[in-house]
């Protein structure tokens, strides 16, 4: 069985030690997913697997057989940016840009989680079906993506500007 990456079928690596992140960066020349810790502690390596956000550094590539992976390269290109990518540029949702692909992938799936009604640590009543869209909810839900440059305000602004309607 193969792994689908940005719509293309890819053979899993022979060495089962290869993480999904190393598969992308070292083997497939897709360096959009970044390595900030290789320990699950920063979120820079966030990609989408069947639409869910996961950390590619703690995922073995072998586990991805039969699954569909989307990386930042599959979301938009410099000439054709996705609306959220465009909003990151406009709202200055980054400085060095290193955490950025992870932030964007994370945010896209986060909006889906919000819409699905997945509760969060700051949700007042976890039994309620709909979650109110608020800056606090976004901040809590994005907390798995560190940004040492401190572009947090811009990131939240970019997500709010683009995704508020979809999320509600």
């Amino acid at each position, binding site marked *: 069985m193969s792994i689908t990456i940005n719509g293309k079928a890819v053979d899993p690596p022979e*060495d089962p030690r*290869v993480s999904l992140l*190393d598969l992308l*960066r*070292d083997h497939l*020349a*897709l*360096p*959009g*997913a*970044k*390595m*900030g*810790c*290789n*320990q*699950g*502690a*920063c979120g*820079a390596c966030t990609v989408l697997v069947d639409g869910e956000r996961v950390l590619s550094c703690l995922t073995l590539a072998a586990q991805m057989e039969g699954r569909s992976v989307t*990386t*930042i*390269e599959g979301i*938009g*290109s*410099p000439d054709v*940016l996705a609306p959220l*990518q*465009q909003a*990151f*540029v*406009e709202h*200055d949702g*980054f*400085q*060095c*840009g*290193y*955490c*950025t*692909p992870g932030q*964007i992938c994370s945010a896209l799936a986060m909006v889906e989680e919000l819409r699905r009604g997945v509760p969060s640590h700051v949700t007042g009543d976890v039994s309620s079906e709909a979650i109110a869209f608020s*800056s606090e909810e*976004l*901040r*809590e839900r*994005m*907390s*798995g*993506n*560190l940004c*040492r*440059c*401190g*572009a*947090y*305000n*811009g*990131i*939240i602004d970019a997500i709010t500007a683009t995704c508020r309607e979809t999320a509600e």
Partner: protein
Amino acid sequence: MSIFDDAKQAAQGLVQAGMAKAVALAPDSWVPGGKPDPLIRQRHGAIGKPVSRLDGALKVSGKATFAAEFPVEAMTYAAMVYSTIAKGRITQITVSEAETAPGVVVVMTHRNAPRLNPPPAFLSESKAAAGDSLPVMQDERIYWNGQPVAVVLAETQEQADHAASLIRVGYEAEEAQTTFEAAREQGTQQSRFMGQPLHDEVGDAQDAFAKAPHKIDATYTTPRHNHNPIELHGVTLYWRGDGSLRVHDAQQVVAHTAYTLARTFGIDEKQVVVTSPYVGGGFGSKTLWQHQILAAAAARLAKRPVRMVLSREGVYRVVGGRSPTEQRVQLAATDEGRLTAILHRGLTVRTAHNVIAEPFILATRSLYGAETFLLDVHHVDFDMLGNTFMRAPGEAVGTFALESAMDELAHELGIDPIELRIRNEPEKDPISGLPYSSRNVVEAWRSGAERFGWERRNPVPGTVRDGGWLVGMGCATATYPYHRMPGGAARITLSADGRATLDLAAHEMGMGTSTAQTQVAADRLGLPMEAITFNYGDSTLPGLIMAGGSQQTASIGASVIAAYNKLVGELLKLAGNDSPLAGLKTEEVGSRDGGLCALDEPDRFETYASILARAQRDTISVEAEPPMPLETMHWSMHSYGAMFAEVRVNAVTGEPRVSRFLGSFDCGRILNSKTAASQFRGGIIMGLGLALMEETQFDERKGRVLNPSLSEYHVPVHMDVPEIEVMWTDIPDPHAPMGARGIGEIGITGTGAAIANAVYNATGRRVRDLPITLDKLL
């Protein structure tokens, strides 16, 4: 530091002191910046506009290529083994299992490493970049816990990592100096900053303190910190057939690094090319450390390209951080709150192999107009990894102490803390005696206080409550000096099609440099931004420009001004007598609309295209260096900020959280309001981390960092960071290029104290030991 070095430094100090006096007394017009940059007057150009980052589209789509992402044929991947003792020697190192492990290309230890010269340590000479001057894997000596002792190259990263885990090292440990108290007992030494002793005396501060009616005497401690840019330190490099070395690095000092690598490998400086188009954050850490040298040495041994990406633990083992400090601040004041004495003294930690001691008194030198001063930094030497500068070295932790003490004094006197600061506003620099180039901190205080709603603060600590939270407000002054290091240079190439290219060995680490400097160049050359190409991040380009000390903007600015003036001179020569510009001197000419014009007669104008066409030239290219940065010996040049924090402390658990923050800045002219706001916020957020959570845990028993990971070293996450308001005076500094002082570091200064002071206002607890974790508030 050897006695010889001390003597050399002292001699340099004397020369510098003599020169400083002469420059201080010189007429303004003799000094760089004496005549304001003409761009300061121009108010309708690209400068100041909220232009989005020019590299934005690449960054948000994952197409900006970072150091560890350059593809190279026949690549090998590196892994390292680090020492587990702080001092001693390797008695045995068994590599046979690693050498025969699948995919291994080479195992390098001190036994087979190429012979290298010790690298010159950063600041030991103008082009030096290394973290310390220790020999790199040349013998069995161990100097710090975490020192690399072996490098493995393999066909894949997985194979390299595994083989590294098979290497067995035996050590003979010697007694190491790794404890603060023991080191202090053995004696402390005078610390220096850029060769000058960190010691200042004005009047008899001890006496003034003894006699004062109101005083504060408190000791503040700050822990070690690590920069922790999210991009791991990584390098891709290879040797070429001609013996030259090509390095794709994550760098904030490309030219220094090329020079230092060349010295280390005993080759010509021109044979090392270091490029660094994108850097995933630096904050002082993306300089030259052992890993690049070891990668190059291993590449030479293997005759293959090498990619070395440090693990996060590896970063803590080989890249230095900020040193801890213990600072005693004594303030004395009259009944009216006039400072009669400031004493700020203390101790930090250093290694014997580099020259960097945390200079925490720098801000205290010029912030308040006290009558007397006694400032001093001493250090003890540890057997540890050489620490380095981290965002606002000195000021970040120094302002925590000074500005906490100011708050304590305000409380003691019953004066509003802002009012206390304003009452002690100096007329000239209290220590150097120089006039300020531009100082509008009072305006920053007043406008900030109004926007923040300071008047709503209840000055009685522990009285405001919102549900389960105690709420408090605090403030502090932020400050960071204007620097411009010697060594800048720029090349401008103008082509007949109306395009200009600027070449400088400068850096973009997320500060927005490439965008802001394109705006500046557009205004300076009278061209649209689209017509400007700004090349940077390449050691073969002109200039020795460090992205550090918030000085890059000034350094680039002054270099481009020098090149521009030369360009205008050359163009006037080419224009000749048939041009409407004929007869004008360089200083009478400016740029607009793709050409040159007389400054007082803008209609006397000719386009670049026309000048070049008449001279039958396709392009013209000039390169120039700016004058020495004497302006900082003639004026006291600093940026300022008024920082306001609202903090909530959980009444049950003591958890402190920042709920509002405002920074009101006076940093000269702002070149790009969008990217500048981000720089300010980024600094403030790092200051929030410094205040509430950041600490590198150094186990003194072994001299070893015990939390070398992003899950155990806490940096602020989204949820810790409220919306941060920033505002600025935008008053140009008449003596700085473009009227702009740097903005990259000031945000982290003052923030720690503003938050600590807000915690005090919320709870009545004065925490003088960072970070302010909940156990200190229970």
